[in-house]
């Protein structure tokens, strides 16, 4: 066997000074040579732990092998057989806790850069006409309604269309893609990539109806009445959570969803060319420690804020953000205030925020989530001057669909209850998956849920 190569090929990136002034993608992607060099590191081990590590079961050794044999159409075919959105996943999946974590080379400290190779293959396809993967089974005559066009809905739709079913996606916003369009910023996930993958789903025969708020424009029961044989709910976790402390409704205090939606979906960073405005001051505090907080903070940097703080109530170890994004954020000059919790926001007589009273925290015993519980330290309160605040505490499922759908049961947290193996809800002929079931999670877990439900829906339709 050839000698092990433990030099992971690094990802070329825009320099921090340059990128903090533009919205272009930060990670530039491998060149052909870099991709080949990285692909050649794969030892094609027998155990193939990476395939188990992938929530949608991509045959990783197979596509890497095709790549290094310079058979790109085959690499694309192999990848897309399991994953309809590889350009997205290659960019935003937490590979370090999935396929790459279990890679045989990880034991030697240098796992294969699977995400980067996935992105390389997806981008190759985008730049080359390639019709290798539009195979669709003969029409079955069954009709399926998919609600929501995020990763869960798109994946379920693609899988069902490939099996010959007629699929319509209903989406409340004016574009398809869910969080991929309204949440994750352009510099991390270009919208052109998302739309190319949405177009691929359309090319399988899926119809996408925008401006359709299920629960309002149409209800789930009405979808069933007009003849949809099955309904899949993938409406995500779009409801922003707030701190519920004084001053939270002052001007200049945003939810992360509002902040990111204005910027990404409505392109407020191009105001006034685009009509939607955003106001970012000189000193911004983003509250929270997840990917969403990092995205909001990095947007604030690009919108010209002089100083951007991440305010997080636990320590760095507990931060849920991807390591790579935290590093990127720090390179761009973010200031991280750990073990700090806001108590209230201070406003001027015009109703604008000018400060934030915080308290220092100590870590106590582990809580239900296994993370050490932060406890306020008496008498340690202090004031930070801020003129913009972004509250990024997470989201919960939007109750619009559940509250308008009789028989669809939810948990106390508002998530839809399903059967784990199939994605079936408590309502007949209705399946669900993605963030609406799990609460805010990941792109790939939502896709896995879409896949699982599609298989169950297909089995149900065949048995009819």
């Amino acid at each position, binding site marked *: 066997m050839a000698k092990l190569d433990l030099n992971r090929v690094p990802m070329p990136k825009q320099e921090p000074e340059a990128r903090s002034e533009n919205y272009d993608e930060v990670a530039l992607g491998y060149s052909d040579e870099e991709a080949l060099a990285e692909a050649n590191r794969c030892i094609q081990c027998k155990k193939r732990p990476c395939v188990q590590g992938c929530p949608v079961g991509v045959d990783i050794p197979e596509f890497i092998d095709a790549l290094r044999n310079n058979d790109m159409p085959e690499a694309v075919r192999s990848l897309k057989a399991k994953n309809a959105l590889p350009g997205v996943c290659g960019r935003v999946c937490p590979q370090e806790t999935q396929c790459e974590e279990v890679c045989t080379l990880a034991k030697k400290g240098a796992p294969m850069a699977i995400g980067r190779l996935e992105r390389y293959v997806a981008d190759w396809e985008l730049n080359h006409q390639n019709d290798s993967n539009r195979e669709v089974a003969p029409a079955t005559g069954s009709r399926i309604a998919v609600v929501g066009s995020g990763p869960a809905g798109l994946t379920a739709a693609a899988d069902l269309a490939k099996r010959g079913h007629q699929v319509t996606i209903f989406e*409340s*916003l*004016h574009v398809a893609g869910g969080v991929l369009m*309204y949440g994750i910023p352009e510099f991390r996930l270009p919208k052109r990539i998302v739309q190319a993958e949405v177009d691929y789903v359309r090319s399988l025969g899926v119809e996408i109806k*925008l*401006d*359709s*708020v299920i629960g*309002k*424009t*149409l209800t789930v029961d009405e979808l069933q009445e007009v003849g949809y044989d099955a309904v899949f709910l993938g409406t995500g976790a*779009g*409801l*922003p959570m*707030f701190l*519920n402390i004084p001053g*939270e*409704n*002052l*001007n200049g205090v*945003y*939810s992360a*969803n*509002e902040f990111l*939606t*204005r910027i990404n979906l*409505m*392109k407020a960073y191009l*105001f*006034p*060319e*685009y*009509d*939607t*405005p955003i*106001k970012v001051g000189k000193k911004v505090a983003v509250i929270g420690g997840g990917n969403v907080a990092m995205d909001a903070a990095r947007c604030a940097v690009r919108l010209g804020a002089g100083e951007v703080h991440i305010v997080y109530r636990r320590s760095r170890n507990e931060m849920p953000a991807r390591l790579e994004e935290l590093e990127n954020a720090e390179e761009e000059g973010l200031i991280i205030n750990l073990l700090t919790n806001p108590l209230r926001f201070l406003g001027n007589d*015009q*109703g*604008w925020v000018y400060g934030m009273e915080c308290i220092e925290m100590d870590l106590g015993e582990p809580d239900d989530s296994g993370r050490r519980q932060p406890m306020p330290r008496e008498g340690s309160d202090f004031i930070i001057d801020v003129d913009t605040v972004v509250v990024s505490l997470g989201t919960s499922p*939007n*109750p*619009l669909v559940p509250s308008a759908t009789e028989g669809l049961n939810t948990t106390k947290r508002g998530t839809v209850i399903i059967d784990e193996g199939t994605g079936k809800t408590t309502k007949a002929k209705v399946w669900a998956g993605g963030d609406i079931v799990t609460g805010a999670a990941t792109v790939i877990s939502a896709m896995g849920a879409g896949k699982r439900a599609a298989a169950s829906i297909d089995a149900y339709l065949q048995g009819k």
Partner: protein
Amino acid sequence: MYQIVAKEDVTPQIHLLEIHAPDVAKKAQAGQFVVIRLDEKGERIPLTIADWNRQKRTVTVVFMEVGKTTRKLANVKAGDSIANFVGPLGRPTRIEKSGTVVCVAGGFAIATIVPIARAMKQAGNRVISIMGFRTKALMFWEDRLRRFSDQLIITTDDGSYGREGVVTVPLKELLEGTQKIDRVIAIGPTVMMKFSSITTLPFGVDTVVSLNPIMVDGTGMCGVCRVTVDGAVKFTCVDGPEFDGHKVDWDELMARQRTYLDEEKRSLEMWQQEQAGG
């Protein structure tokens, strides 16, 4: 795309659009709203539903020219299309037989109150309407509102038509009068709703207002439309738009509505320059 079936200039600054939107037309109820977007670069703005025609599958909205979007919308002609038209959003007005209902409308909100007055009348209520305008030239739909009202009072700030003064004066007289008032529905500019609520408070009469904060998605996703009602945070687009006027934190709402005044001005000026140049 959603086609404009008919356009009417109700007054020089207030316009009516009848839009082909079958799904919305099927469901629309009094008190609900839509979110529209004009074109690729447009913003999403909420507009209250003024009427609907289930046979023609159209929805009617009435709006006043304020910023860039509403001015651009005023330039749209019958036969043109707009990019997005989503709805019906929000909860419909609670329509029930309560006895005597006073419908108070200020300015272009007259268009919102008409379907509510109609539904109230159909539900068997005695309907008294008060409509207020700055001046006679801005007045419209007197005949429509009269059709659903047992009594109609008109005020103008400058006295050019009807009674001189603001709507709260006749409202107070009604409350002090001999007939029992069971419910007040006040819709219009935020200050007008605030003062209508202040007027009814001492009389303990149930007062419904329809709030118009800034919105983006209109589905509960962004939280920009949050208002404080009875000490609790509510999202206007899903929990409203109608709330108990006695419990709304009006000053907070008014401050929040001013968030983007500078940007709105800049956007409008740029557009006007472009129009002049082109």
